[in-house]
């Protein structure tokens, strides 16, 4: 089977109006597989990409995991990849006029995984963060 990237549940984030909120979540690939980092070494490779698509907060910068430089049987040069468990953080601005109470911030994480002999179709998985806006 193609490897499935799993995203750990994210605890509810308290967001204060007019302030900054940092949201981090953990994702993981099964052993033996890698995904391109957000800055792959080859223009043809598909980067790890987090997009926030809906919610009351305004994304103000994404911090991707530190890439590993790994050599595979199919590559002459090391590739910039993520493996195993990794974290992605996003800094959000909380609008001063955001409605108080529970809300959700929704996004997607796109990745393309391979092992050392084959590659799998790019996939996009949903990312949802529960918010408590005060």
């Amino acid at each position, binding site marked *: *089977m193609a490897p499935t990237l799993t995203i750990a549940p994210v605890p509810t984030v308290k967001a204060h109006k007019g302030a900054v909120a940092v949201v981090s979540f953990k994702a993981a690939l099964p052993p033996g597989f890698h995904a391109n980092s957000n800055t792959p070494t080859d223009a043809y490779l598909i980067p790890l990409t987090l997009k926030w698509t809906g919610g009351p907060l305004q994304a103000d910068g994404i911090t991707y995991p530190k890439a590993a430089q790994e050599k595979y*049987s*199919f590559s002459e040069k090391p*590739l910039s990849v993520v493996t195993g468990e990794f974290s992605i953080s996003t800094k959000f601005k909380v609008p001063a006029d955001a409605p108080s109470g529970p809300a959700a911030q929704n996004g997607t994480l796109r990745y393309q995984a391979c092992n050392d002999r*084959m590659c799998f179709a790019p996939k996009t998985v949903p990312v949802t963060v529960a918010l408590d806006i005060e």
Partner: protein
Amino acid sequence: MRLAAIAGVAAILGIVACSPSRPTHAVVRDTSQRKHAPDFALKDANGKLVHLTDYQGKVVLLDFWATWCGPCKVEIPWFMEFQRKYKDRGFEVLGVSMDDDGWKAITPFVEQKKINYRVVLGDDKTGDQYGGLEALPTTFVIDRNGRIAAVHVGLAGKKDFSDAIEKLLEDRALPAGGNSIRSDGADAHHRAGTHG
């Protein structure tokens, strides 16, 4: 995405079931064990429709690949070499790109690598016909009669391919009308109640 979610390559080909995350190195199977290669109609870079049946009577290496697939890029130079080496003996490589971005992604790659064989843009239907294609590269070696003689899922050995091609080039095609590439998805030999 042009790749289906579920791999069925093993099912369509009747090969030994194994994890798609492991490469398969199928040997050239006996003629009686070969199944027909489904026909398709896919466009090349010039917009011309290409059918597998266009290659009737030839040994065809049908390579499903994508520009984002690292292992595919290892095999492509081998396939270019095969195209040069065996073309005059009735052999053709046909690349089927499964890139979602289509020719925008494929054309620069083909030009950069100076690919010397025909490349067409694949689609989900064709992927499904060939078992789902969960992993790339997936390469089918098709005999002169349009039957799948070998399949490799994942990066295979160059010699695995060349041995298969050499063997199939030595085989004779069936008499006219005996080609089993069919556009309706049915196996000509099975329909006719015959095998091999």
